[in-house]
């Protein structure tokens, strides 16, 4: 990836915090269905698996069946001899068989290599060991059965706390602690000693499966000497990693991201890419690879289980004096993005509350469990259960209401957070709290004698945008065509949340091109300027700003031409409905169609195409002091719920659920609502149902029949309260909403259960067995 744009008029924009010119907007704020919705309801949207080429082969990964073992030998002769098998590959066929993930950007995690295909050692069940390509999927599957791997089983370690023991089995020679973060502000020990009350709590979360409905898939082929893979990925920039594995120049690998059938972070790391690439490269033929659901659930990365230990010191009036937090995250067998997930865990572990003294430690620890990595919420989610349970405990101990204790401690614009940064946008927690509780109204009555009803809520802050020290940037290339239509080219990928559609709405707002006349080309390393992947709730902020600035710059470029053609000044022009008009004195008279304007530009040699690179805030973080720049900004919110607990069965029924977030400005309220409803539902699954059950590294949850995600029957409708503070760092002062909406759910439900039964759940998921055990303690 390079900065050096050689495309038309590169222009770099810098972030600004000032509010954009206010309404009225023409497109922003409307609940629009967009181009991708039409394809989706027609069923014509093409996903990664919907691609077929002449002579295409079918690929399959052979995976480790043991969590920790030495590979003595791999016998492939029988598989190779099967008619229809074209290639069988093992570690020795991989040109550079190692990926070193430096998720923190080199701020202190171990440099641990991950092989593409295991060579002499496997470290988790499901680790790729060999590859097959055959003329049909059936033959590829049969060949996979014929590959004999001779293992010598080794001791493994499956509990991250046990892995911290000095005598523990070492998953990697480099050590079991991938990274340790320490963020310190003030003197937490002293403040705890001086506090009127210290509340201690321990909370545990579980492995969670993304469970996107589209399994990992892709098709690869060779084209003009370029290895091309069209795949379900959030990050096309993995092209560079694939090139490294094959020892190819980076410009000889092209990655295209199809519209995804969900991702949630699970398609942020590479999935099928290196395997497809190897098979295509070795066979010279097109190859398709689709992971079976069982395979996906067995071997794909999961959400980190956290063990969180909190000590919260408060004054008698409820003011928080100190937080001492210790977090252990199970990284599984390889680094992936654990270093950054655990950073977010520590950095956000105090929540949206003023914390003058903080000692926040987090560690990512290797085990022989399935690797964990990015998952919507990214470490800042797990800790909400910690800090919001603590807040309720503080309130209870002091005899204050849970709302009051929070109100006394909410962060405000200008406050310093534990990393030493000052918040530069409004913190609307209080408004979201009020809106959520107002919406719930009077609590309902229990439906039977064995039932108890409780109300709980949780507030949260979730970053949007990458950690600042990555010096993030995104670019967009806009072209007004001769007929007045607009092309947007952007390296953004679309998870299904309308990432591409948002860009169209932003451009339409500025340039006045009707939405139906905008085409957006995304997710292609060969043809789009880089946007840096769709994760960290960063694309509205990053690519949204890139498109906004590109559109403004393009408008500024063509406006003088329009002014000349219309005999007025550029500031008298309006761009609306595909027309440029003179609007002075409240009346709009003469105008130009955009096609006429483009023709006018052509005559005057003014280019109607523009590439803009937008840079986020720049900064640095010092891992020794735990101080520095962490995230660009945050989205705040409150979720509130009424639940009913059956004290005879432990069953928890969610009766009502309200989710409120300050999104700064809702670019498309229908999609904002959809994000919040979907996030809260996924969070309810996490709170009450979902658990990847691992026994000595073996998963008992590799079928949807064993791993339950919420169905239409399990949960109530999620009621949404959108707050628009008008402050945020995205386009038109929007804040990101992808991740924030999942994060407070488990804490809200836990607080409601505690309110109902007087006993506090501290372990997720809050299954009937666990809740019943709590009920019996009453």
């Amino acid at each position, binding site marked *: 990836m390079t900065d050096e744009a050689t495309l038309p008029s590169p222009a770099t924009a810098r972030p600004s915090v000032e509010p954009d010119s206010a309404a009225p907007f023409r497109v922003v704020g409307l609940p629009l269905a967009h181009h991708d919705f039409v394809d989706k309801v027609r069923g014509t949207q093409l996903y990664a698996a919907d691609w077929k080429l002449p002579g295409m082969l079918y690929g399959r990964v052979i995976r480790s069946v043991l969590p920790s073992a030495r590979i003595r030998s791999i016998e492939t002769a029988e598989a190779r001899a099967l008619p229809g098998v074209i290639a069988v590959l093992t570690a020795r066929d991989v040109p550079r068989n190692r990926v070193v993930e430096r998720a923190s950007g080199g701020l202190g995690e171990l440099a641990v290599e991950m092989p593409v295909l295991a060579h002499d050692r496997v470290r988790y069940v499901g680790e790729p060991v060999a590859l097959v390509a055959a003329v049909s999927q*059936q033959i590829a599957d049969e060949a996979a059965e014929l590959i004999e791997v001779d293992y010598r089983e080794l001791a493994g370690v499956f509990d991250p706390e046990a892995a911290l023991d000095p005598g523990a089995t070492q998953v990697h020679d480099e050590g079991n602690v991938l990274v340790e973060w320490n963020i310190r502000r003030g003197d937490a020990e002293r403040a705890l000693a001086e506090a009127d009350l210290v509340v201690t709590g321990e909370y545990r979360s579980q492995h969670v499966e993304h469970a996107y409905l589209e399994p990992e898939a892709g098709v690869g082929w060779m084209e003009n000497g370029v290895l091309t893979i069209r795949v379900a990925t959030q990050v096309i920039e993995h092209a560079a990693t694939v090139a490294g594995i094959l020892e190819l120049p980076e410009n000889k690998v092209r990655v295209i991201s199809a519209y995804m059938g*969900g991702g949630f972070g699970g398609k942020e790391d590479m999935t099928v890419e290196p395997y497809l690439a190897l098979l295509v490269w070795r066979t010279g033929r097109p190859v398709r690879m689709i992971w079976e659901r069982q395979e996906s659930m067995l071997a794909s990365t999961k959400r980190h289980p956290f063990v969180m230990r909190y000590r919260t010191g408060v004054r008698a009036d409820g003011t928080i004096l100190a937080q001492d937090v210790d977090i252990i995250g199970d990284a599984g067998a390889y680094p992936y993005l654990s270093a950054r997930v655990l950073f977010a865990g520590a950095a956000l572990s105090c929540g949206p509350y003023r914390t003058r003294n903080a000692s926040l430690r987090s560690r990512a620890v290797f085990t022989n469990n399935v690797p964990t990595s990015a998952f919507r919420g990214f470490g800042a989610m797990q800790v909400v259960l910690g800090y919001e349970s603590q807040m309720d405990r503080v309130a209870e101990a002091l005899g204050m209401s849970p709302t009051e204790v929070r109100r006394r401690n909410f962060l405000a614009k200008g406050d310093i957070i534990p990393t030493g940064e000052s918040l530069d946008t409004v913190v609307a927690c209080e408004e979201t709290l009020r809106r959520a509780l107002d919406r719930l109204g009077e609590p309902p009555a229990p439906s039977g004698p064995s039932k108890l009803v409780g109300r709980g809520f949780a507030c949260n802050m979730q970053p949007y945008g990458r950690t600042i020290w990555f010096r993030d940037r995104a670019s967009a290339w806009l072209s007004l065509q001769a007929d007045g239509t607009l092309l947007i080219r952007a390296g953004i990928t679309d998870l299904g*949340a309308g990432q591409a559609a948002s860009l169209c709405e932003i451009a339409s707002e500025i340039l006045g091109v009707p939405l139906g006349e905008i085409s957006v080309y995304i997710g292609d390393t060969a043809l789009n300027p880089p946007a840096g992947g769709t994760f960290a709730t960063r694309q509205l902020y990053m690519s949204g700003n890139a498109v906004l600035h590109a559109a403004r710059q393009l408008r500024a470029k063509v406006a003088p031409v329009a002014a000349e053609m219309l005999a007025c000044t550029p500031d008298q022009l309006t761009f609306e409905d595909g027309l440029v008009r003179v609007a002075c004195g409240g009346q709009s008279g003469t105008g130009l169609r955009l096609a006429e304007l483009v023709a006018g530009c052509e005559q005057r040699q003014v280019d109607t195409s523009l590439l803009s690179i937008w840079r986020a805030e720049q900064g640095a973080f010092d891992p020794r002091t735990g101080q520095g720049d962490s995230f660009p900004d945050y989205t705040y919110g409150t979720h509130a719920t009424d639940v009913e607990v059956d004290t005879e069965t432990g069953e928890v029924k969610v009766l009502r659920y309200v989710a409120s977030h300050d999104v700064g400005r809702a670019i498309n309220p229908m999609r904002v609502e959809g994000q919040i409803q979907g996030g809260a539902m996924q969070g309810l699954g996490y709170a009450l149902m979902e658990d990847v059950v691992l026994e000595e590294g073996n998963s008992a949850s590799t079928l949807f029949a064993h791993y339950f995600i919420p169905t239409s029957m399990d949960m109530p409708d999620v009621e949404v309260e959108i707050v628009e503070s008008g402050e945020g760092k995205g386009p038109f002062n929007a804040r990101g909403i992808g991740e924030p909406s999942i994060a407070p759910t488990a804490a809200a439900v836990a607080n409601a259960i505690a309110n109902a039964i007087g006993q506090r759940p501290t372990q997720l998921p809050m299954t009937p067995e666990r809740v019943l055990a709590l009920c019996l303690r009453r």
Partner: protein
Amino acid sequence: MRKRLISLSVNGRGYDVWVTPSELLLDVLHDELGLPEVRYGCGEGVCGTCTVQFDGHTVSACLMFAIQAEGHQISTVAALLGEGEALHPLQECMLRHGGAQCGFCTPGMLLTADCLAKRTRRPSRDEIRHELVGNLCRCTGYTKILDAIEEYVSLSSPDRPSVEGAELP
């Protein structure tokens, strides 16, 4: 395995296809007939992304062999489209309510909803919930899907072409 020639009727059109006895209906529809709207999601009949209508009833195409479909009428979401590929009112409701996010579950959802609407004159929201239990969605939280279907079943018959003559008491 020896292949045999079977005749399939899909969306009112006849196809002759060579299949092995173990080939799944899903694979034949998706890979052989090129119908991307019938999608592999789990292969165990739980997620509903491969839902098709089989003689007017919803089935999971991943749980059927292609040869079992011989002589039966199969419909995918494409069959909902009207003249000139116009969107079906049910699809319009889905569009209007933003009932699709990633869209992967959408065709299955629509086919299930269509079956319900043909069978039941005015299903309640709870009945719709019950009907959709075999179609998982991981993006929307179901609310907007339910809103869309609820609006559709509330439409009068002329806007609900499928309801005529198929009403149950």
